[in-house]
Structures are given as C-alpha cells and as structure tokens.
C-alpha cells in the first residue's frame, strides 16, 4: 500500500461529560463490557477433537482461519483507523480506537488457535495459501481501496460490509464443527468475535446513517446505488472464495445460504432493505442454533399447536429496577 491513511489535523481534549450523541457512550460501554482475550478460552481442550479431523478438513479449517486473520488485520490496522478523521464526534473517534484494538485481538486469536492445534510448518503453509488465494486477496484489496479513498460515507459502507458480511464465509466453519460437537472451545472463541463484529457493524452502520442525514437526496441515492453495487461485487467474489474453500467437502451451497442471510443483515445495518428473498436465506438450523441457541425456538405466533402459544418461560432476571 503506497497511499498514506490520513490523520486528524486538529485534536481537542475529549470531554466525556459533554456528549453530543448518546449512542457513542452506549456503544463504548457495550464494547468495554464485551472485552475478552483469547487466553481466557481453554483452546487446548480442542486438541483431541482436532486429531479426529481428516487432513483435508484440517487444511480447510486452517485456510478459513488465515482468511479471517487477514480481514481482521485489515480492519484493525487500516479500516477502523481510517474512519477516525471523518468521525462526527470526539467520542466516535474513541469508539473506533476500541474497535481497532479489538480487531487486533481477533487477529491474534487465530494465532492462538493455530499454535494450540497445529505445527509451525502447517501454519506457515496456511499463511502462504492466504497470500496466494486470488479471491481472498481480492476481497481484502477491494476494501482497502475504499479505506484509502476520500469519501467518508463510502468508507463506512465498505467497513460495515466487511464487519457484517465478509467474515461469514469463514465464520460458517467453526459453527459447522460446533454443531457436530467438534472444536467446541474454538467455536466459543469465534462466537465472541461474532458478537463483537455485530456491535461494530451496527455502530458503523448507524454512523453511516447519521452521515446520510447531512446530505441531499441525490447524494443519498448515489450512496444507496453504490452500496448495492459494492455488495454485488463482493458477493460474486465471495461465492468464488466459498467454492475455493468448501467444494472439497461439499458444503459450498450450505455456506452460500449463510452468506445471503448475512448480506441481508449487513444491508439492514446500513438502514437498507434486505436483498435476498427468504427462499435463499434458509440457513441450516444446526448452524443457526450453533450461532444462537434460542434462534430456532418456535416463535411464530400460533405455529404448531392449534390455539396455544408459548408463554415465556422463567428466566433469571438480574436487571436492576426489575422488582414490581
């Protein structure tokens, strides 16, 4: 990369006692409360499980994780940092520094997984694959190009699509293993990353929409067209990348449904309507359940048992002010 990411020209002391946008405080607190480190996850409990995978499955898994490492590296060292100069409030700048740091934690987590499960030689081979895979390099390059560009709103679109869409061809696999009771500690770690990416995508998408409020209708239309075009471009590449990774084990079609489902969510994070119809977003229930254990519970009004519906079951309520 030859262009330099621009830095702030002018800085004022940040005053957290004078808040312009409450969302900054809310998200800062959420991120701080969600903070975690890979050392807290007992990855070594997966060593036995790793040994039950075939060499081809192990290779695929390592490739998936080096691909995710690359994206987290981009987001940590370029992406989140490049959003700082165009922040609308000083607190937004602070939130991006938090996001950037956590992306670096994510990138490092994959190395923790590797060093726990694999040999140095295998690790080096997987990293070499990541630098040589065209589709992986292409997706990183598309995003980096927008980050070094000079359109602040387009940067936020690219960043939200990265956080909310581009990771998911990779996230699929640990959810798949988890649904088959394999690499379950690794899956726990990935779920922490998935949770973080959801907050990041939500927040950057929100700031994109705040930016939209300040521009005219023609510019809004331009950005909307741009968003769908970029998504199509990334989607096409993502489909090929998915085939590169998953054809060997016959999972590509299942992964694509997961891509469609997450592309819709990425669009919604930007305030746009979902694009893929429900006929192609029917994610394998085992994957959805590995993502969120209560996602597949029956919550569709009266479906199932005639006139009855499920009354909420007792849940521990730890919330304050909940006594009435």
């Amino acid at each position, binding site marked *: 990369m030859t262009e330099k990411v621009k830095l702030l020209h002018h800085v004022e002391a940040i005053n957290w006692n004078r808040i312009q946008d409450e969302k900054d405080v809310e998200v800062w607190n959420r991120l701080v*409360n969600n903070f975690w480190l890979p050392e807290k996850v007992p990855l070594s409990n997966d060593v036995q499980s790793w040994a039950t995978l075939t060499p081809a499955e192990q290779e695929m898994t390592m490739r998936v994780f080096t691909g995710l490492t690359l994206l987290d590296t981009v987001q940590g060292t370029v992406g989140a940092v490049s959003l700082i100069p165009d922040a609308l409030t000083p607190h937004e700048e602070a939130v991006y520094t938090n996001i950037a740091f956590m992306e670096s934690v994510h990138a490092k987590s994959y190395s923790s997984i590797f060093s726990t499960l694999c040999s140095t030689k295998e690790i080096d081979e997987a990293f070499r694959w990541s630098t040589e895979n065209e589709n992986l390099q292409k997706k990183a390059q598309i995003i980096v190009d927008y980050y070094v560009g000079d359109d602040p709103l387009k940067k936020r679109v690219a960043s939200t699509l990265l956080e909310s869409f581009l990771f998911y061809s990779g996230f699929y696999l640990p959810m798949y293993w988890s649904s088959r009771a394999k690499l379950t500690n690794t899956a726990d770690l990935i779920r922490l990353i998935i949770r973080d990416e959801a907050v990041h995508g939500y927040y950057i998408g929100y700031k994109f929409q705040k930016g939209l409020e300040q521009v005219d209708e023609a510019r809004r239309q331009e950005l909307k067209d741009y968003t769908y075009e970029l998504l199509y471009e990334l989607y096409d590449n993502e489909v090929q990348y998915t085939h590169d990774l998953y054809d060997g084990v016959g999972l590509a079609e299942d992964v694509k449904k997961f891509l469609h489902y997450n592309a819709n969510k990425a669009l919604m994070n930007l305030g746009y309507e979902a694009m893929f119809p429900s006929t192609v977003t029917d994610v394998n229930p085992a994957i959805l359940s590995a993502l969120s254990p209560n996602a597949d519970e029956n919550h569709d009004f009266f479906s199932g048992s005639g006139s009855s519906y499920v009354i*909420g079951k007792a849940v521990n309520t730890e919330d304050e002010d909940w006594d*009435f």
Partner: protein
Amino acid sequence: MTALLEAGGTVEHGSGNAPGSSTSASLIYFSSASEYTHRFVRKLGLEAARVPLYTQDETIYAQRPYVLVVPTYGGESGKNSIPRQVLKFLKHEGNRAMLKGVIGAGNTNFGTTYCLAADKIAAKCGVPHLYRFELMGTAEDVVRVKEGLEEFWKRQLKNQQ
C-alpha cells in the same frame, strides 16, 4: 436474485410519543436512536406508540390492551438487557395490566442473549413471546407479524366473550 430496492430512504426521526401522554394504540414499541425497531413498526402500517427515548422523561400510558415490541442490544452476559426506558414503562402497573404479548427484535450474533429482553418481559409478566425478528426485519417478517397480530387480537376478543 431478486433485489428489493424500494428501500430505506429516510425515516422521520422521533423521540417517542409525548412524555406523560396516554395512548390507545394496540402496538407499543421502544426504539433507540438507531431507529431499527421504529422502521420495522412503520413497515407494519399499524397505529403504534413509541416509548419516550429519554429515560428522564415521563413514560407513556396504555389505555387498552397492547403488544410490546422490544429490542435487545446484546446485554453483557444477559444483564441489563432490557432498555431502561422500557423498565420505566413497565414499572407502571396499568401498563403491565394491559400487556398481552411481546415481540422481540435482536441479532442472532448476540448468541444466548438474542431477543433476551423480550424473553424476560414475557416470563415476568406471564404473556407470550409471539415473534422474533432481526434488526429492522425482512419483508417476510412484516407479513407474518401483520397477520399474526390480526389473528392474535381476534382470539383475544373471542376469549373475552
């Protein structure tokens, strides 16, 4: 691939119904400044009241039975998952008495806390958790909730007779 491009556009931003006001809407919701739940409710095209955005404002008062739509923003390990504004609204006994069902909004990325606020409210108030959707809901969610609510109120009415 069918693209549904009639999208988003702009939403009129609001901070909720006037603090301290009463509402005869049968759908009451909370939505933060990010407006996702607000957009979903708008797509339903039903009369709806919004719980005031600012916790320090007086809440609103339900005059007739209603269903509550409440988002969960991935509370830290499940704590404090119910928005303060919604707690304040539900602390009012009359509002609890009129609550007939809950619809949850959320994101499956939050794992075990997906739609947790709606789960908690449903359990505490002994009402059904009728439906869950993610972010601002898909076109299919909108149809299902519209039809579901219509049927739900029909059955409520029938049970009263």
